[in-house]
């Protein structure tokens, strides 16, 4: 493994941990309609768009496990979903579509919607809590919008990071 590749991976790892800490810090990120974003979803997706499938899978798994850890309880739900999504996104970015701002936003919207919808089903509806439709519209929908809206920041940051280090690598 090349020196610059290691540097890139270390940078991704630091970014993931730092954003997890920011996400969990009470009172740091302002709420939007009572919801806060899951910063690690756009981070993992934007890493996946610039990396090969195995590193994308690994960073997806790591980000997912951090999300699981923050949420408490069962470990592996976000890990499984985000790892799988990042693997698929990386393959699609390499073989199916161009990596640009539009595709990044589409990937972010679709992936966040799928992940949060499954979260709602498995951790709200199947838990038997009252008012699932209300929770979906009042909490999960704002969380989805907020999470997807973070994508431009993480996309341009990781794009700059990947291009900057790759140019030195080449």
């Amino acid at each position, binding site marked *: 493994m090349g020196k610059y590749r290691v540097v890139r991976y270390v940078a991704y790892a630091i970014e993931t*941990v730092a954003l997890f800490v920011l*996400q*969990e810090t009470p009172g740091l990120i302002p709420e939007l309609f009572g919801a806060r974003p899951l910063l690690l979803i756009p981070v993992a997706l934007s890493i996946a768009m610039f990396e090969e499938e195995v590193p994308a899978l690994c960073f997806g798994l790591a980000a997912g496990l951090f999300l699981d850890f*923050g949420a*408490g309880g069962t470990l592996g739900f976000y890990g499984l979903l985000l*790892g799988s999504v990042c*693997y698929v996104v990386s393959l699609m970015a390499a073989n199916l579509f161009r990596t640009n701002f539009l595709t990044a936003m589409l990937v972010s919207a679709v992936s966040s919607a799928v992940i949060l919808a499954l979260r709602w089903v498995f951790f709200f509806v199947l838990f038997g809590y009252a008012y699932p439709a209300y929770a979906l519209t009042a909490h999960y929908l704002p969380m989805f919008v907020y999470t997807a809206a973070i994508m431009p920041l993480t996309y341009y940051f990781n794009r700059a990071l990947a291009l900057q280090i790759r140019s030195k690598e080449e």
Partner: protein
Amino acid sequence: MKDIFHSTGFKIFLAAVFVMFAMMLYTAGTGSSFTARVMGLLTVPMQKISTVVTNNASVSAESTTQSKEQLIAENKQLRQQVDDLNRKLVNYYTYQQENAQLRKFLELKSENEDFKPVAAAVIGRDPNDLFGGFTLDQGTQSGVKVNDPVVTEAGVVGWVSSVNAGYSKVTSVLSPETKISAIDKVSRDTGVVGCDEKMADDGIVALQYLSAGTKVKAGDLVVTNGIGGVYPRNLLIGTVKDVKNSATDVSLYAEVTPAVDVRNVRDVLVITSFQGQGQAMEGLSSGTSSSSSPVSSGVK
């Protein structure tokens, strides 16, 4: 496409899926894992630092704004000096607030000599938690256990739902998983305090299963009645806001405004031991039922 399915990457992907499934099954059963402990070791110290920095920054921002207004009105030449003094004042007020909180904790301890309290700070609030749950900076190393009650000097906050060496997760009174056996201090009517999604959004809980002839009224204080062994007696839960008919049966319920704003609380007290703790749960586990879940004892 065929190449993808035969690639090493795909085999690694399948292995990762298998490992994640196994981890989900394992942690769903045990509630903790080696991975969670490692992640806790890595992130909890950083969370503590970021929380302290955020809290201090918000206090400093407020203080600086006030000082600037005063300084413009008084004397421009003394601006720098006053800023310095204000920075010292921030620390002073922080210590003063901590001191006041510790004094109140001490009073709570003096009133209840059987309590073994552990002071803890909120270091994490996850966006996934819709009911005001949070992470504390104390864990098993400080004697914190699962089901320990979490309170402030004002009243009940919640209970410890999972614990690790250096941190613990708290489920708040706004969670549907929290059920507290409670009593109206004025009318002596008893019920169960619970919550649902809509009530949690409004920041209220419900004193449920009140009889049709209940004398509970707005303004009454609702406290824990100690049954169940999860919460000690006479901890304030909140104040009755209104009494309403239940939508599902003939009983009534009282809307209760919690004494503590659990979504913004920063410092709490975990009661790690008190007289009668865990009695009902021991009874349940030693009974005929094989279930260890303290369903009627305060925690689902």
